[in-house]
């Protein structure tokens, strides 16, 4: 894109419509952002440093953060959340990469129908999906029926209301969001590069490691931002299929706000989620840069 801009010197970048009206064009979106996004987050920050509860304001305090970071119960939920979402993310990448590669290189006339099917799964209602998985993983559910029918297990196994159930639901619920960005990145890979590597005797493992993975790094980063961050916010999945065992930070926050009315602690916990997602995004961007320099 920048190359074509540079190739056409007559077109000076970004000046088609002059400068003065920039403010006029951007005023309403920026105002919306300030009032409905920035202000609430600023106030939430204040609440996390105050003794506020549902009744109103309190004075300044560090107690909420001390409680959130000090209590062993919270710490174990943090750990569970990180384990659950990392496992789900790892599974997602393992399933999504071959699917994306197939879609980008081998699907042929099926490429567009498959892409449409993936986009469709984006639009299907996530709560309905959760409910469907609840039925699938039931003691009487399909998985148990199949396992028993094949004689693999005698008694129905407990799937529902475990960490595994939450991982399954998180990994399957976001598949499309991971496949599509990786597909988009792979689509930009020059096919001749792969042909050349193959002709020079590279095994498919080498092609994967040296060409496809580094060049689709942008897709992986996009997937982490689109999928991993929302996973940390998700309290519907733990609530519907996780039960007591598959508890996540978001479940704690929902409880602090709705059941206990403890807004200070709830807000502090929200900023823990923000911190984890920020670190995650930063680390993945760093890794992708290091990887690109290395190759």
């Amino acid at each position, binding site marked *: 894109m920048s190359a074509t801009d540079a190739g056409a010197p007559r077109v000076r970048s970004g000046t088609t419509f002059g400068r003065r009206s920039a403010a006029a064009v951007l005023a309403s*979106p920026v105002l919306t*952002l300030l009032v409905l996004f920035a202000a609430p987050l600023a106030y939430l920050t204040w609440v996390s440093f105050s003794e506020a509860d549902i009744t109103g304001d309190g004075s300044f305090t560090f107690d909420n953060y001390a409680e959130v970071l000090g209590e062993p119960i919270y710490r174990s939920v943090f750990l569970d959340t990180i384990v659950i979402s990392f496992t789900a993310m790892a599974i997602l990448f393992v399933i999504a990469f*071959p699917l994306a590669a197939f879609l980008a290189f081998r699907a042929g006339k099926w490429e567009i129908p498959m892409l449409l099917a993936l986009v469709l799964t984006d639009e*299907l*209602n996530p709560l309905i*999906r959760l409910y469907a998985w609840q039925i699938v993983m039931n003691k009487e559910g399909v998985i148990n029926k199949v396992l028993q029918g094949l004689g693999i297990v005698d008694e129905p196994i407990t799937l529902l209301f475990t960490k595994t159930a939450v991982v399954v639901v998180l990994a399957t619920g976001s*598949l499309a969001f991971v496949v599509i960005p990786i597909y988009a990145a792979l689509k930009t890979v020059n096919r001749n590069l792969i042909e050349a590597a193959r002709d020079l005797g590279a095994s498919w493992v080498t092609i994967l490691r040296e060409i496809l993975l580094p060049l689709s790094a942008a897709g992986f980063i996009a997937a982490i931002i689109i999928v991993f961050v929302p996973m*940390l916010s998700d309290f519907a999945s733990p609530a519907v299929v996780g039960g007591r065992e598959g508890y996540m930070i978001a479940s704690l926050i929902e409880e602090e706000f709705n059941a206990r009315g403890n807004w200070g602690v709830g807000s502090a916990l929200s*900023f823990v989620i923000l911190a984890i997602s920020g670190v995650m995004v930063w680390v993945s961007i760093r890794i992708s840069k290091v990887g690109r320099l290395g190759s």
Partner: protein
Amino acid sequence: MKQAEAVAAGRTVRGSRSGSRSVPKVVWTIRRRELVTNAASAVLLLAGSLILFGPFLLLAFLSFNDSQIMSFRFDGLTLRFYQEALADEAMRESLRNSLIVAGLTTPICLVLGTLSAFGVARFTFRGRGGVAAALALPLVVPSLLVGVGALVTFSKVDVPLSLTTVGLMHIVVGFPLVMAIVTAALYRFDRSLEEAALDLGATRRELLWYVLLPYLVPALAAAAIFVFGWSFNSFTVTFFTVGSERMFTVWVFSRLRQGTNLPLVNAISTLVTAGTVVVVYIAYSLLRRSAVRSGQDVRTLVAGGPAQ
């Protein structure tokens, strides 16, 4: 050239090493490899579709099964759960509210998002990068923070939670999504066409109306589908800003938490899923037609949009 010859030679050497009748064997190896890859692809696709669509098909099956419990023994065909579901006032209201909120927020998001995209992609001013990043923030910040932030703030300024508060929060998360899609489309647009229009004496208004907007129609349509779907399916933000009003995702969630009247949920879930499939398919057909008309690839519109 020499390299290519060496490569070709290397290939022959490797081929002949595998046996005296090298040619058929090589062909066989290639065929077998092809077969293995095809089988692997088939398994992969089957597993993928099963994971993505299996659960929904199961719900559809259960919704027609004349049984109160979630069993897979087929007890006969029935439509009574559909009748009960459609007669359920709470469900109808929640569905109606969700459609109204999505229907009203989508056009507002389209306007705000397109303005942002133009501001970011077609103007130069100091701090443009910062403004672009700030406008994209609602897509990156976990939606839980948006939801609880809105909850505490609306309570602080004494705005009672209602469908309006839900709609407002849907707008602030939805318009950056539109911005992302339209910005990507604007960057893909051949700028020399804009210059040509101006050189040929078009006013800026005519440039917008006759050159840019027709080009943007497919991108705007794609954005509209994404935002409408996002709003309708949104749970986290909706849950914290809805108060005592009824919205579809929140209604399903409370049904699941209480575990009551589940066959009714089967029926309505199947209806909503079927509706989504039909709407997405129609939208896609229209999208493809308008994309072809303005010479764009529907794949870039769909996959290159949100992911840039």
